[in-house]
């Protein structure tokens, strides 16, 4: 469903999704600059072009819900509400970072928001989210767990094991596949012989494929899936078709990609589409610009705070290998 076909009442929802998307987009653009300037060390994997999935799924979540994400997970954690300042402090290796500078981009986590971490191992977040779904079920929290994964993880054994276990135990697990067509540097068509839809069907798991660059479509699908999960109907798979604008990691020149493919993908840009739909629904351009400016101001302040923050404490780091104090 295209955004323009939604009733005007959805304009507010789309505006809210747009605000999330512009924050995620601008955070990642800033990270790209900081990385190029040497202010962000290590590896970073940007999700530019995939923001509609992060915004749409997050809009369907409730406070008790949990999620585990991937190496390309900045959008998922920011859309869930991760504090932007503490996010930048983490990725810039500062003591005030959410993980006190020990994890970086691939391990951002905020347990108070149910964010069980990004993950450096492809597919590894899926069974962790499954375990979190088990905790929701046993503890009767009413919550659901979201496992974000990319199409590259479709070839990982833990996905197949997790589909089986989630179906057997009817767990409240939403499996969100961001299918951008690329498994690192290889087209997924060359890596995976099956289709996710058929895989879900093999386990009798409800499946839906959506345009992952249409934030409202993702949000609607995630809401419907979430309702089914909360009603105890077992796991769901949501495959969001999208496009990876940047390389596998920053610094990847993407010489393996075709110019036409990149151009076609860029034309599906989720922010441009949301903006056009908002304008068509009568939202003033100045108001949308204001959303962009507000996100930019928040990011600028966060980066300034991160630059000013202390470097992490080695003593505190080594003290956190194990939990101090008495057994509970």
């Amino acid at each position: 469903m295209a955004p323009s076909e939604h009733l005007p009442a959805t304009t507010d929802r789309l505006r809210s999704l747009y605000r999330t998307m512009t924050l995620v987009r601008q955070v990642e653009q800033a990270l790209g600059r900081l990385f190029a300037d040497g202010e962000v060390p290590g590896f970073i994997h940007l999700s530019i072009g995939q923001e509609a999935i992060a915004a749409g799924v997050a809009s369907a979540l409730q406070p008790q819900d949990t999620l585990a994400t991937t190496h390309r997970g900045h959008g998922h954690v920011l859309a869930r509400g991760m504090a932007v300042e503490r996010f930048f402090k983490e990725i810039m290796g500062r003591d005030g970072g959410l993980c006190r500078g020990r994890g970086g981009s691939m391990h951002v986590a905020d347990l108070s928001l149910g964010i069980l971490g990004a993950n450096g191992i492809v597919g590894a977040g899926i069974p962790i989210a499954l375990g979190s779904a088990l905790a929701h079920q046993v503890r009767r929290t009413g919550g659901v767990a979201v496992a974000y994964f990319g199409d590259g993880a479709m070839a990982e054994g833990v996905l197949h094991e997790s589909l089986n276990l989630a179906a057997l135990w009817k767990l409240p697990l939403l499996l969100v596949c961001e299918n951008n067509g690329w498994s690192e540097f290889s087209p997924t068509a060359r890596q995976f012989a099956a289709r996710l839809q058929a895989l879900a069907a093999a386990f009798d798991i409800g499946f839906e494929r959506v345009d992952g660059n249409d934030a409202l479509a993702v949000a609607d699908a995630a809401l419907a899936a979430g309702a089914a999960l909360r009603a105890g109907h077992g796991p769901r798979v949501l495959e969001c078709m999208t496009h990876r604008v940047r390389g596998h990691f920053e610094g990847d020149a993407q010489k393996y990609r075709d110019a036409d493919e990149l151009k076609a993908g860029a034309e599906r840009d989720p922010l441009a589409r949301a903006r056009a739909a908002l304008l068509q629904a009568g939202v003033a351009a100045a108001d949308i610009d204001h959303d962009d400016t507000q996100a930019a101001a928040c990011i600028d302040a966060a980066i300034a705070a991160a630059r000013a923050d202390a470097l992490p404490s080695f003593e505190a780091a080594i003290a956190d290998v194990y939990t101090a104090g008495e057994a509970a």
Partner: protein
Amino acid sequence: MSVTEMRYVQAVAQALRDSLQADERVVLLGEDIAHAGGSFKATRGLLEAFGPERVRDTPISEATIVSAAVGAALGGLKPVVEIMFMDFVTLAMDALVNQAAKARFMFGGQGSVPLVLRTPHGGGLNAGPQHSQCLEAWLAHVPGLKVVVPSDPQDAYSLLRAAIADPDPVVFVEHKGLYARKGTVDTGVTASLGQARIVRPGRDLTLVSYGATVATCLQAANDLAGEGVEAEVIDLRSIQPWDRATVLDSLARTHRAVVVHEAVQAFGVGAEIVATLADEGFDDLDAPLLRVAAPFMPVPFATSLEQAYAVDAQAVIAAARKTLA
């Protein structure tokens, strides 16, 4: 509280039962642990007592069930996973090494991962190269994991209760060859992870071991006593963390030490202990530090081969004599 004569495997089951009773966050996961009561019957009767929500049969998916235990632990449960043979932890190494061990540290101390992975190691059953290994040194090498190896029924009970109560991931290594061993278990006895025990005092040399080879060391010590040699035997009980103070203190009294384990000697637990004694106990040493452990080969199947492979009391006695020569 009760004091009862029971087998090692029954002590494991009793600890699980009492933990399930004491803490509603405890859930058990594993292959054939519920309806079948476990391959070695360590979970017998628990499904009937606590129901299928808390005592769960899982499919044969080691990687996913251990990872799920990490997610469940972060979600407020205290999962206890059984891996049927220690050899199969190889299938769950990402879950243990990259996820469970690192979550607390990697997330800046935001939370802990209170999971226990129970698994039996050890040979002596003609189980062959993929059902007999002692892989505890691999796990003891990973910052963030604890590794506990009980040698008798009392410790099987008390250390398992302590492991389940612990806030961090604990690998609880049982021994297939000890499951049938009987002993007195007092359910009121508590234990702390990382505390060794002197199971036989002696003045002439120190034998350091854990798990099934503690009994091998005791047997060797009894034989040595016939020669007028009094060996002190230390049961480490936990190898990560391990009780340096007790071992160094013993060395300061005996001036000689031999480390004994069933696992392969090369790059093993014994190497770590001997290196520490050489560093920190150098001034106390009157003889080279020795290790008695398995040769650098897979565990063989045939009885004759496996007997030749296994560490026995004669090998311990020979090492002891060498340090005293």
